């Protein structure tokens, strides 16, 4: 869009590192990380905030890419004078490894074969994503994050930072997330993966150099995912039982309802911007996430990070009780943790939508952290 002023335009940058050791025992070499930064790092390097994106996000958390139709995915919370104030903080957002938005992932070129990795790409965990972010942190000369912030899969990364690298992370804000993926959450991801892997065009992950692509499977996977991001209330408000461009039922299997049309649109537009294999890798990383299984009470007692944990009343994918559970676990060991459940009809997606209360508590908590250091 030509209307975007030049100071609001940003570009994704890339940093390349030799290699990274992964939790699986495998190594990934080279390691490429796509990232963006907003604002300026202060002289003491104490104002750096890491923002972690969710499953389908990218390094473009805020501001505009040239020619883009919309700004970064959390532009409503990041910017001058906004909750995460870029006049005050140096904000970093990097694309996770295993994804498809610039960092190393299954669509990257495998240097051993000079072809895309496909399933040769090693399986990634949330902790691996965090370890990759630590490479970037050192590269940018940051000694400690003032705060690591994220929702959903981004919240898992934020929690991993706080629980496993507490000394590098003064504060942590995790929204709409969990510290352990449950059977139901794994189940939804498993169906998504099955949809992709049962699409003949998937071809065991080797579709990059063919003229087919598992559009159908990925679209269905996205539709299932999308249902879990909304809520009964949100769907009733937005669609109810409204029919799509017709007065009466069609008595056939074409699209009758608005919600059907909406899901198809979500699926079809998602395949334009997301890689099917990356969807497999990222959902697997989320399913493997079990911070609770990794840590002991002794580790929790040693955590000095200050937490703000946020849930949303209508989020049934990561329901409020799962977020509150993390708060209780930390409180039991007398850690510094605030918990807030924000009322919202928007389901899991609520954290990606502007909400005045969310804005106030993000800003207030960051302000407190900044005042303490």
């Amino acid at each position, binding site marked *: 869009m030509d209307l975007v002023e030049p100071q609001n335009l940003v570009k994704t940058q890339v940093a390349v590192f030799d290699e990274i050791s992964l939790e699986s025992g495998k190594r990934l070499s080279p390691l490429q990380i796509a990232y963006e930064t907003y604002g300026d790092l202060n002289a003491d390097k104490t104002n750096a905030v890491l923002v972690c994106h969710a499953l389908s996000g990218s390094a473009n958390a805020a501001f505009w890419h040239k020619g883009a139709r919309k700004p970064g995915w959390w532009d409503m919370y990041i910017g001058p004078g906004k909750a995460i104030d870029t006049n005050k903080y140096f904000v970093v957002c990097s694309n996770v490894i295993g994804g498809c938005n610039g960092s190393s992932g299954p669509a990257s070129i495998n240097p051993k074969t000079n072809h895309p990795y496909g399933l040769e790409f090693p399986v990634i965990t949330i902790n691996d994503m965090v370890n990759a972010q630590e490479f970037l942190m050192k590269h940018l000369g940051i000694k400690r994050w003032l705060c690591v912030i994220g929702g959903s899969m981004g919240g898992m990364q934020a929690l991993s930072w706080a629980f496993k690298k507490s000394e590098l992370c003064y504060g942590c804000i995790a929204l709409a997330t969990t510290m352990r993926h449950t059977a139901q959450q794994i189940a939804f991801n498993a169906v998504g993966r099955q949809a992709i892997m049962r699409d003949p065009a998937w071809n065991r992950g080797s579709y990059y150099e063919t003229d087919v692509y598992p559009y159908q499977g990925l679209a269905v996977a996205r539709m299932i995912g999308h249902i879990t991001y909304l809520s009964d209330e949100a769907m009733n408000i937005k669609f109810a039982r409204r029919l799509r461009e017709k007065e009466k039922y069609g008595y056939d299997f074409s699209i009758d309802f608005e919600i059907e049309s909406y899901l198809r649109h979500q699926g079809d537009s998602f395949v334009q911007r997301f890689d099917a294999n990356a969807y497999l890798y990222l959902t697997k990383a989320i399913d493997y996430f079990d911070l609770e299984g990794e840590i002991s009470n002794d580790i929790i007692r040693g955590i000095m990070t*200050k937490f*703000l944990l946020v849930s949303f009343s209508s989020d049934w994918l990561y329901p409020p009780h799962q977020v*509150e559970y993390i*708060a*209780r676990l930390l*409180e*039991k060991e*007398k850690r*510094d*943790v*605030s*918990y*807030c*459940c*924000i*009322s919202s009809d928007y389901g899991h997606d609520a954290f990606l939508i502007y909400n005045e*209360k969310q804005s*106030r*508590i993000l*800003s*207030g*908590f960051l*302000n*407190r952290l900044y*005042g303490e250091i």
Partner: protein
Amino acid sequence: MIRKRIDFELIQEIIPHGSRVLDLGCGTGELLYFLKNEKGIIGYGIDCDEEKIACCVEKGITVHHGDIEEGLKNYPDNAFDYVILSSTLQVIRWPEPVLVNMVRVGRRAIVSFPNFAHFSLRLALAFEGRAPKNKALPYEWYDSPNIHFLSIKDFEHFCKSHQIDVMRCEFFSKGRRIKFAPNLFAEDALFLLSKGGTSA
């Protein structure tokens, strides 16, 4: 807000510098904010109101949005130096487990509440025959958040029967301390408590 000021001042007088303090029903965090600034305490709050929680976070107060009883149960013994329940006792559904847990979770507990046996309320009930109201209890019966009506005597009896030691108690009315016949003349009471047999 005279009541609140007296509460705050008394609590400030009781709590030593640098204490770990839990405020149950902390509201917008005014008391914790006050104690943080005046006494350098490490403060935590619990409240069930989302808007009030947001105000606390904005003030830099550490808070838990949720139920007081559930929140208290979760804390280990002596997790805090002081647990405060300021003018909130009368609105809690089940006060018994809350009070018992307060002296378990805190080395000391501070409880303040309006006295339902104040003479003005007694007179209103006796002569008007209607549910009484005064400055401390200003609500109509049908829109009152207060669901328990207790007197100073009731509270003292509760402490005795639950092996809770009363270490100090203060009574006041209209901004002044009441020494004589508090159950008749005090509008508000504040108790400093500890678990029976542990006071030293």
